[in-house]
Structures are given as structure tokens and as C-alpha cells.
């Protein structure tokens, strides 16, 4: 007897990426009109790696990730496109399917652990209930597992502290609890939404290292959402830069931070001072303010703030929406030629 195995691969699946987002659209209807929070976004996450999604407020980075877990209110949010995760299409998946994935195969870590943890339940219960729900274990086993996880994330005296409430912990310890809760079912993907923004810098360093360590041990993939390119540089393998609901640049950390190609990425990099940069050179901020997503500018959404659109030629930037290119590897959504990009970037870096 010959066994023929067919591997169903979704249209969006490529290579060994096990999360693939294709042409994602998320829009919310509000009293003022339709907000296009995410507009045609595609990206992939490879197994065991970290993808850093960088952008400012309103760039759509958090909205994207809530969409992966189907956490948007379906009455107000309209979601289009495809999200493939381990051979499953998540856009339009049933509630039961999503509930089985959440906390089990895909877990989330939120920005502010004080508000993200329930004030009414002990941390042991909050961690344990995820394990019980997805693994069907007894209360006893779930509690033991919670203690094990707390020890793993470096909570001292975990056997006692498992019965404490979130408000008994300091900010850094609370975020460790959140991480323990996210990892309790050994998920394949963890989405961390600004996990260190509410923390102090020394604690941030501890938490980022902890995430990296746990990733090495458990082989988890991570999507790290942040506004801080420094955080990305320290933790991510690949980077996606978002602006006003669209991806403007994509590549490895080395590519995007070392030889950035999009004017917005340049702006982000040159507007933050560094410990090693010259203090006599003024910062180079991005002009103006981010656009309203109710009425985003036509063409390239960054063009009203861009200093280089004259180099492209008349009107192209304000009429045609650029797509990420090339399709694989280090890509950017800008009409400047590669040579122009390299020259401008070299110029920008002089004197820094």
C-alpha cells in the first residue's frame, strides 16, 4: 500500500514561516467615519525567531496583533485579508477555534501588567486557570505548574507568592507574572505588546533578557511590538516598521538598523539621541505630525512629512501607494532608487 500524503498549504504560506499575515485590513466604524487602522499589511514570522514591529501611536501595530487573536469586537471592527497560523486560517475562524488557540498556542503579554492582571484573583489562580482550561488538568496540577512557571521567570519564594494578588508585586515582578501566564501552556507564538514600556530601564533590561532566555529554552516565536528601536535592536531578529497602518520597511535587524532605506525609518533613527552620538549636532526630527486615519493622505502615507519626495519626480508620491519591494528579504515601500537611498543614508549618518 502506498501512502500518499497531501500537505495542504494555504495560499499565503511560504517557507518555514508558521505565521503568515497576508493583505490584512482592519477598519473601525466610528461616529466620525471609518478609521482604517491597518490597510494592506503582510508579514511573516519564522519559527523560533522574534519579529519586532516598530511604529508610533496610531501606526496600527497593536491593532494588527489583536486581530491575530481575533480580539476585536466584531460589531465595530471589519477585518479583511488572511492570517495563517499552523495551517489554520484565523480571519473568520469560529469562536471555539480561537478560544482553543488563545493562551494555548498563541499567548499575549500586555504593556501594563497592573491593569492587565485581574485585581480580584491570586496570581496562582490566574496562571493556573489557563493551564486547566487548555490542558484539562486538576486544580492541584495547575497550581504546581503555576509555581514552576513563577520559579522559571525568577519570582523568589514562588511557593508562597503564588497565593498573592497582583498588587502585592512590584512593576517588574508583575510583568514576570504576566510572562509566566503567557508561557504556561508552552505556546508556539507569544505576542508582546510594549512589554517594557511601563518599566524602568534597569528592569526593562532584565525583562528583555528574560524573554530572550525563555525563547532559547522553549523555542517560542515572539512578535514584539514597540515604539523603541533600541528594544528591537536588543531582542529582535527581524523588523517591520509600520506607519499609519502600513508597512514601510522590512528586513533583518542588521539590515533595517544598519542600512535603513525608508525616509520614515531614517527619521525614527535620527530623532532619538544615542549614548554615543555627538551632542553638538541637533537631532533631526520628522516634520509635522502623524496623519489622521479617518482621512489618510493619498499615495504614500508618509509623503506630507517626507523631505525627499522631490527627488522622486512630480506627483508619484502623492498619488500612487508604494508597496514593499522586493517581496522577500530587505524591502521598503519608497519610490527613491536604491542608490539614492544609500547616498542619503550615508549623508545622514555623517557627523553622528
Amino acid at each position, binding site marked *: 500500500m502506498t501512502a500518499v500524503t497531501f500537505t495542504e498549504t494555504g495560499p499565503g504560506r511560504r517557507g518555514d514561516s508558521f505565521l503568515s499575515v497576508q493583505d490584512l485590513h482592519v477598519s473601525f466604524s466610528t461616529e466620525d467615519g471609518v478609521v482604517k487602522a491597518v490597510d494592506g499589511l503582510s508579514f511573516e514570522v519564522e519559527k523560533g525567531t522574534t519579529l519586532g514591529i516598530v511604529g508610533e501611536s496610531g501606526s496600527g501595530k497593536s491593532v494588527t496583533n489583536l486581530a491575530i487573536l481575533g480580539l476585536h469586537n466584531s460589531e465595530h471592527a471589519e477585518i479583511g485579508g488572511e492570517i495563517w497560523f499552523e495551517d489554520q486560517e484565523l480571519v473568520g475562524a469560529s469562536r471555539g477555534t480561537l478560544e482553543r488557540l488563545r493562551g494555548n498556542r498563541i499567548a499575549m503579554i500586555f504593556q501594563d501588567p497592573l491593569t492587565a492582571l485581574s485585581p480580584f484573583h491570586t496570581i496562582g489562580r490566574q496562571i493556573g486557570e489557563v493551564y486547566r482550561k487548555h490542558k484539562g488538568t486538576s486544580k492541584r496540577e495547575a497550581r504546581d505548574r503555576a509555581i514552576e512557571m513563577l520559579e522559571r521567570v525568577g519570582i523568589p519564594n514562588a511557593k508562597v507568592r503564588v497565593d498573592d494578588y497582583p498588587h502585592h508585586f512590584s512593576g517588574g515582578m508583575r510583568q514576570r507574572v504576566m510572562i509566566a501566564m503567557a508561557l504556561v501552556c508552552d505556546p508556539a507564538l507569544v505576542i508582546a505588546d510594549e512589554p517594557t514600556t511601563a518599566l524602568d530601564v534597569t528592569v*526593562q533590561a532584565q525583562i528583555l533578557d528574560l524573554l530572550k532566555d525563555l525563547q532559547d529554552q522553549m523555542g517560542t516565536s515572539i512578535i514584539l511590538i514597540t515604539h523603541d528601536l533600541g528594544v528591537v535592536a536588543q531582542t529582535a531578529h527581524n523588523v517591520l516598521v509600520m506607519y499609519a497602518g502600513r508597512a514601510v520597511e522590512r528586513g533583518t535587524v542588521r539590515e533595517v538598523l544598519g542600512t535603513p532605506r525608508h525616509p520614515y525609518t531614517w527619521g525614527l533613527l535620527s530623532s532619538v539621541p*544615542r549614548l554615543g552620538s555627538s551632542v553638538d549636532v541637533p537631532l533631526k*526630527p520628522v516634520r509635522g505630525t502623524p496623519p489622521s486615519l479617518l482621512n489618510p493622505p493619498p499615495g504614500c502615507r508618509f509623503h506630507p512629512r517626507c523631505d525627499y519626495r522631490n527627488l522622486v519626480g512630480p506627483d508619484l508620491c502623492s498619488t500612487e501607494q508604494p508597496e514593499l519591494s522586493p517581496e522577500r528579504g530587505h524591502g521598503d515601500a519608497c519610490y527613491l532608487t536604491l542608490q539614492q537611498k544609500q547616498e542619503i543614508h550615508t549623508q545622514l549618518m555623517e557627523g553622528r
Partner: protein
Amino acid sequence: MQPLLELKGLTKYFPVTGGFIFKRQVGNVHAVDGVDLKVGEGETVGLVGESGCGKSTLGRLAARLYEPTFGKVLYRGQDISTASRRELKPIRPEIQMIFQDPYSSLNPRQTVGAIISGPMEINGINPPGGHEKRVRELLETVGLNPEHYNRFPHEFSGGQRQRIGIARALALNPKLIIADEPVSALDVSIQAQVINLLQELQRDLGIAFLFIAHDLAVVRHFSQRVAVMYLGKVVEVGDRESIYLRPRHPYTHALLSAVPEATVEDEPRQRIRLAGDVPSPINPPTGCRFRTRCWKAQERCAEEAPPLIQLAGNREGHLTACHFPEAPTTSGEDVVLDPALA
């Protein structure tokens, strides 16, 4: 030369109350504990530290929004910490504050014009050409459209609101501005606009700044001298170069090593990972306050609080409060204290 602002042994305790039947004081939050600091005329001094270190309280004490528990705030040699309202009157306009949150620090029911001209009216200042003309000038100075005189704060973005706050601080021609985390609520691309604006104003108008922030790179960029605070005390202070390139206090080392840099380094930097969080300022550790998280701590650190002094090899004015200081370099051996990372 007499410094513009001098803090001497400045201390602020906030009472903690509790008790049975009758409320009584059961302890103190040692927010600021014996801080000495000088700000020269036209000088920019940065104040860095993590949450709970007392940097914001210190700023408010210097602006005399709080009264100190002990210690003095000298402005041009005059003690303003105990001065009466009348004595303060001529000094108030010279010290202004810029706050962190551009949303809650502007009255939503007032127009931009009213917000900015408010301080002038309160202090009875009548600029030539009237308030409105001055406000329009100020709006232009901070990079806003003077035509927006009659608009309300909610019509502006966060960065623009922070500019309004800056214009309000400038209205009285201050000599000293205390900026408490002026850019930390803003988006990255907007932060740089505001920092550049503050720097221009500093240069053009010769205003001295006490610049309070948690972001070490921002403080470095803005400040000529930098003070590092930990749990209510200044642990190290000095010129920018000394603090960032030749730090001596272990905490300064730890802070610098924790800053995530937006570059992909081929050679990894010194990695210092402390254990746990900052202890509570209600019961701060005895002796050196950093000792509970310090890898060099010995018995002496618990018994004796290290004085803030100039160590051998430090530059003039570079003071460190440590019994067992580190070598003056930022590239040392890794120190990992966090048990989860070991």
C-alpha cells in the same frame, strides 16, 4: 561665582498615616533625602533616575511647589524654601516649570491665548503692545501658528500642546526652567522636535534648565552636567563626559548598561543585570541605599552611608557616593544578578 539655584541638604518626607481608631503617622516616604545640587546661570543640569527616585519631587521642591521637610533652596543666594508669599513674588516669575503630561497640564476650558497670558496677568506684567501681541510672539517662538491664539488645547496634538506649555513657561522671561519629563509622553518623532526647541531657547535666551528625565540618552543630549538619583539621594553627579564615559558608581554603570541602543553591535557592551526592583522609599535600606542590589556591597555599606565626594581620579566637580567605586570606564565585565537569567 554664586550659582543661580543651590539646593542644600534638601529633604522631603511625605507622611504615611494609619492606625487604630485615630489616624496617626506611621512612617514616611523618604522621597528626597539630603540632596545638594547647584545650577549655574544659563547651565543645563540633567537629573536622571528610575521611578521612585525622587527626581520629580526634587523638581517641585526647587520650584517651591512643595515645602521641604529639611534643607534649603537658595535662589541667587536667597533662601526661598521658607520665604513668604510676598517675598516670593519677585522670584516666582523667574522659575517656571514644564510638565510631563501635555494633556492634563493645560486647562481644557481656556483658549491658548488665555493659558499663555495667564501668568502675565497674575504677576501684573504688561508687555509693550499688550498681552495678545506678546502671546502671538511666544507662539511663533515655540513654532506654533500665531493665528491659533483663540483655539482650545484639544485642537492640538500632543507635541503642539507641549509647545503651548513651553510658551506659557516662557511668558515671564524666566531665568530657570524646571522641565519634568517634558518629552516622555510624546511619540519618538515628536520628541526630537521638542528637544530641539528647548535647546534653541536655552541657547538664544540663556535660560538655565533643570532637566528631569528617565531617558539617559535624552539627558546626555541636553545637559552639561548630570546628577544620578537613587531612592531619594544623588549617588553621582558630574559633567556629562564624566558621568557617561567615566562613571564610578555601580548604579550609574548599571543604568548605562541597561539602555537599549538602536544599533546592532558587533561587540556586545558590558552587560549588568540587576536583580529585582527598586526597594520602597518608605523603608529605604540603611547605609548606602543601593547596596541591596549592588554586586560590590560589603558590610560597611550597610553601616555607613557613603558621602558624595570627589574620588581620586575623578575630574573637578565629579562627585560619587560609593565606598567601593567601579573603574572609570563603561566597558567592564558582565554582572548578572537576576537569578532567572543566571
